[in-house]
């Protein structure tokens, strides 16, 4: 492998980890509640704008605003679930989907209305710095973003594995009736799950804002990206979301460099179609 290719692959892996965090939110919400959050990319872009505004008006670095935005998004998700999504839990799949398509349309056009169609970049003092490792040049912001995303993913894994609430949520995912029988407050846990999914979105959006410029046009693309990653990685598999994210990150980076940047998502979709044909349960998913 030439130095250039290696460089691009490393960049792709780093971006892919942020994608993975975003997709993890989708995977968690789906894995537990069987609800597909179609407004995923839209809210990711909302988080990007939040990071941009905090940076632009108060000078807060996205690496600092990461935590407050994630917490705010947790509550946003919690409230959204309680008010909007909860009545739809037991309704037909397509009704849930249409509700969230409606929400996505409102959010993305709301952004367009407020901020206009232009891109809003965050120019950190070290935006153009890079680390040199041998023949590799790695963007500083990308390293920070990837490390942040990875740390949050690990934290989420640990939460689901070792805390009481995490275990309770997994119980709801495995056997809803059983969870109700042993006295778990399913409604509450669902809202917490939705909140956690949104916290992932908030964190991923904030980190994304350092490596991509916020604009409303990104929103539907991110929604699709998150879906593609989750399906490639395997539905409901948390590790799968990360693996899928990295894979898509690499494929986008390579296609963007060797073919054409505007054609990069074509390769993601092609990858999706190949996975659906050869291994429909996804790379790390259980057999259908």
């Amino acid at each position, binding site marked *: 492998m030439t130095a250039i290719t290696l460089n691009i692959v490393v960049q792709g892996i780093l971006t892919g980890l942020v994608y993975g965090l975003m997709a993890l939110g989708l995977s968690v919400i789906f894995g537990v509640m069987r609800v597909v959050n179609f407004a995923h990319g839209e809210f990711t872009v909302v988080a990007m704008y939040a990071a941009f505004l905090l940076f632009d008006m108060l000078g807060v670095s996205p690496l600092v605003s990461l935590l407050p935005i994630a917490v705010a998004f947790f509550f946003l998700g919690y409230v959204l679930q309680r008010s909007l999504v909860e009545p739809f839990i037991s309704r037909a799949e397509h009704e849930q989907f249409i509700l969230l*398509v409606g*929400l996505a349309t409102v959010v993305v*056009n709301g952004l367009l209305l407020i901020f206009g169609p232009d891109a809003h970049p965050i120019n950190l003092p070290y935006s153009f710095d890079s680390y040199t490792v041998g023949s590799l040049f790695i963007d500083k912001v990308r390293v920070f973003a990837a490390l942040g995303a990875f740390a949050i993913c690990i934290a989420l894994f640990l939460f689901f594995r070792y805390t009481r609430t995490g275990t309770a949520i997994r119980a709801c995912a495995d056997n809803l009736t059983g969870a109700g029988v042993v006295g778990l407050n399913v409604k509450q846990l669902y809202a917490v799950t939705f909140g956690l999914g949104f916290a992932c979105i908030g964190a991923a959006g904030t980190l994304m804002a350092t490596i991509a410029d916020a604009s409303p046009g990104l929103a539907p693309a991110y929604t*699709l990206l998150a879906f593609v990653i989750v399906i490639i990685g395997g539905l409901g598999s948390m590790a799968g979301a990360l693996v899928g994210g990295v894979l898509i990150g690499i494929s986008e980076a390579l296609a963007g460099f060797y073919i054409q940047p505007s054609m990069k998502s074509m390769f993601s979709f092609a990858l999706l179609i190949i996975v*659906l044909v050869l291994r429909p349960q996804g790379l790390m998913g259980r057999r259908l």
Partner: protein
Amino acid sequence: MIDIWHRLPMRGKMLCLAALAAAIAAPLVADRYLLSVLILVFYFAYLGQAWNLLMGFAGQLSLGHALYLGLGAYTATALWTLFGIGPWIGVFIAIPVAAAAGMIVGWLGWRFAIEGVYFALLTIAFAEFTRIGFDHLQITGASAGLFLSVNSPGSDKWWNLGGGPLLYYYLALILAVAATLLVAWLRRSPLGYRWLAVREDPEAARAAGIDIFRAKMIAMLISASMTAVGGVFYGFYYRNLFPSQVFDIGRSIEIIMAPIIGGLGTVFGPLVGAILLTPLGESLTALMQHFGVNTPGAKSIFYGLTLMVIITLQPSGVWPWLARKLGLDRPRT
């Protein structure tokens, strides 16, 4: 066909005839602007019928119907601009192209047990894939768009789908009425009952000996073909095509609005939905222009909110409710 007519209650027959007569006579009183709104009403009613066949009857959610619309539009307009082949012939090439795309999507999805929401995602993925492909397809002008000249010889003749608004109005009307009749007939056919069985309970349908894969594929075939015809209309009515517009996810959402508002799985739902929704959206735009507000996203916000409100309060749509109010619902036997 005649059977369907006889099934309608007397009041229903009267209403149908009155509405049809009003639609035929409308150009006598409507000005150019109103006529353009009515063209959109029938255009969306037609596309709604096509989509409703797949979702409302066979229960398969497609959010990528822009794919078939775009393929139909591009095939027919490219044949005209590149080879001078008129739309009346072009439409018979556009249909198989879109139908083939539908077959690929359906085969990939249903063969590998990709159901429900994941199938919907697959349809979006294909539409997006094609959009990016057309963005780089030089022969159709790539992202710079494909334009139909109004000056080239023969382009103003009706047999090349050129001309004034009257031509497009009656064409859209004929399409909408024909689609409604086709759907009404299919609804009562053995195939229609098979679709309903697949929609309500695929396992039970399979146990009853229905080849559910086949039933879904036929629904896709008809739906994609019908949408392609709508695409040909789109191409020759607007006379410019951009991949980022015609294959856009927003286009797919636009198509599904009328049947959802009107009533999924009903024959008149798409028609009623289009009649209610299109003038509302258009008057919103007109109103905002009147007050000098230029807000590009406002109409979409309106559509999004409408979707949310209707799906929350009236998930079965306006038509079943309206039919009850008008005393048109068929007595249960």
